[in-house]
């Protein structure tokens, strides 16, 4: 009896340990999974064709142009480029042509019951005009041959993504995934936020740890920590109803939703975190060092500068890095107050669109698996990399 009970216990013991280790492994794997998943989808963008899937561009063979970039295609169909000589062709006006145009030219009876006649009609049209460029679904496309050529399909390029200045993910025939406006929007808003938040937070942290009485500190610290927990959507709402109208009025702007508004809201949100981490770091300075400095006739401020700061520097830097990480990844508040115009920002008084806001705003409309969807994942990867970097830096610095 005794023996059996002991055996049972041992089995239980071992079983539980297995279970626990399995749970540890599952957690690790799940997390690893997230990373792999993000990157697989994101990298997929560079295997997507740069024109809409299932479509292609067709030219008359007399036209010497052999290749077009997505940006050139966009300009052609937006009538920003109007002559072939701008693209290395003859000095002739470009005639952009979409499949809809054929429906306008020919009456319904001539399309065929299953559109089987479309291809022939399109062939005629393209053959007859050396200056045409036609954007057509491949299943109705005219036969490629002596008279008609199809522009070779290319994939979206890394340079196009990171160097492109146009973010037009739903443009046809050629969507543009230039992430530069989004990246610079994110950087601008975060930079403004840090510019505002860091000096203010450091000031408050110094006040709390060196100047305030114990009572003041005991009241203020919990209040500040509490504010770190308030949902970002609430801050965003505040920014929308109070801050952005105020900024519009003060700076006489057409709209109040600007990079500056985003930066200020982000600063307000990041400050509680920065203050409390920095205050902890300052507070960690040994009393003996401070007393030694004061006993030598140094003023309190000299003591702070020469003894407390150097001692707490790694903690302070870690606090700032954490704040930056929060600012870069913050989504809802920024989405609500920056106006979300995906253009290269020039001044802080313009609307900008950040990476997280783009994901939040567009993921709902992007068809799963499409280039747009993959582009949003790639943006997610960038965010992931940036925040991972900040965590690593913060950890590295605070360990030193």
């Amino acid at each position, binding site marked *: 009896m005794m023996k059996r009970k002991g055996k049972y216990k041992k089995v239980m013991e071992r079983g539980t340990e297995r279970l626990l280790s399995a749970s540890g492994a599952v957690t690790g794997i799940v997390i690893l999974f997230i990373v792999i998943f993000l990157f697989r989808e994101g990298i997929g963008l560079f295997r997507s064709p740069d024109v809409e899937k299932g479509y292609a561009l067709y030219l008359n063979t007399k036209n010497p142009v052999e290749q077009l970039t997505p940006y050139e295609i966009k300009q052609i169909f937006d009538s920003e480029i109007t002559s072939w000589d701008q693209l290395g062709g003859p000095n002739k006006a470009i005639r952009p042509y979409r499949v809809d145009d054929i429906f306008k030219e020919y009456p319904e009876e001539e399309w065929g019951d299953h559109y089987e006649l479309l291809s022939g009609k399109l062939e005629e049209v393209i053959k007859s005009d050396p200056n045409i460029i036609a954007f057509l679904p491949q299943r109705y496309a005219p036969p490629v041959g002596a008279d008609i050529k199809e522009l070779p399909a290319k994939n979206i390029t890394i340079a196009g993504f990171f160097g492109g200045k146009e973010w037009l993910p739903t443009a046809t025939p050629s969507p543009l995934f230039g992430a530069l406006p989004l990246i610079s929007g994110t950087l601008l808003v975060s930079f403004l936020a840090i510019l505002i938040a860091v000096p203010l937070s450091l000031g408050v942290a110094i006040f709390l740890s060196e100047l305030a009485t114990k009572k003041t500190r005991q009241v203020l610290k919990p209040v500040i920590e509490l504010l770190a927990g308030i949902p970002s959507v609430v801050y965003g709402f505040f920014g929308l109803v109070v801050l952005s109208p105020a900024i519009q009025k003060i700076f006489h702007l057409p709209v109040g939703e600007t990079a500056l508004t985003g930066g200020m809201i982000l600063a307000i949100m990041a400050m509680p975190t920065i203050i409390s981490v920095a205050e902890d770091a300052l507070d960690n300075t040994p009393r*003996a060092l401070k007393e*030694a*400095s004061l*006993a*030598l*006739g*140094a003023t309190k401020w*000299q003591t702070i500068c020469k*003894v407390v700061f150097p001692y707490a520097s790694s903690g302070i830097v870690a606090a700032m890095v954490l704040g930056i990480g929060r600012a870069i990844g913050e989504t809802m508040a920024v989405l609500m107050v920056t106006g979300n115009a995906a253009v290269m920002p020039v001044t802080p008084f313009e609307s900008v669109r950040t990476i997280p806001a783009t994901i939040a705003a567009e993921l709902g409309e992007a068809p799963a698996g499409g280039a747009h969807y993959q582009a949003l994942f790639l943006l997610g990867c960038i965010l992931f990399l940036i925040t991972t970097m900040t965590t690593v830096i913060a950890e590295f610095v605070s360990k030193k």
Partner: protein
Amino acid sequence: MIEAKNVNFYYGDFQALRNINMEIGQQTVTALIGPSGCGKSTFLRLFNRMNDLIENTRLEGECVVNDQNIYNRSVDVDELRKEVGMVFQKPNPFPKSIFENVAYGLRVNGNNNKKSVTQRVEESLISAALWDEVKDKLHKSAFELSGGQQQRLCIARALAVSPMVLLMDEPASALDPVSTSKIEELIHRLKTDYTIVIVTHNMQQAARVSDKTAFFMLGELVEYSDTKKMFLNPDKEATQNYITGRFG
């Protein structure tokens, strides 16, 4: 000259010093002895106003240094602390080089002349009997020194700003016997230039280094007289009991 006049000191509601009156002469070594918690450190820290740093404390009476009540409104605390240096119980060098530790007090007081700083650092280290041991590694971290050397570095650091008074709060209690005797020798030599007040709970040390001794108990100054007299023939029974080790 240092003087305490009718000093009462409170930590919140707790009275740590009770009606202390005491005069300390120039260029003497005065030892403060007494059982742990009797208020020696509190008393010592009154004279460079270190107690100001502790919240919710209160002082009654006067502390006079150089004929001036140092708790007067007109007194500049930072200037006072240059005049009245302090050495703490545990060596507390800054996490800087040996040189920078000693130069610290000069720099914060606005001396940025490289030559004069270097010279003053050397003088201070010589006075603190540390020069020979560190002259080849002035730019090494202060933490590379032994505990006893660190404490002498702290003394050198205090000397560098040319104080008149040196307050020492159990400066040798964290050190080994060899280092302790080095510190005691040092105190002996410094006496000619400085007024020294030293807290110690080591009776022999008090007897060895000091000219006058003050015995504190429960926040009161029980007896204050020449060290020789105090150890041979104290007036009060409590002093006798303490010195002979019957309590404390």
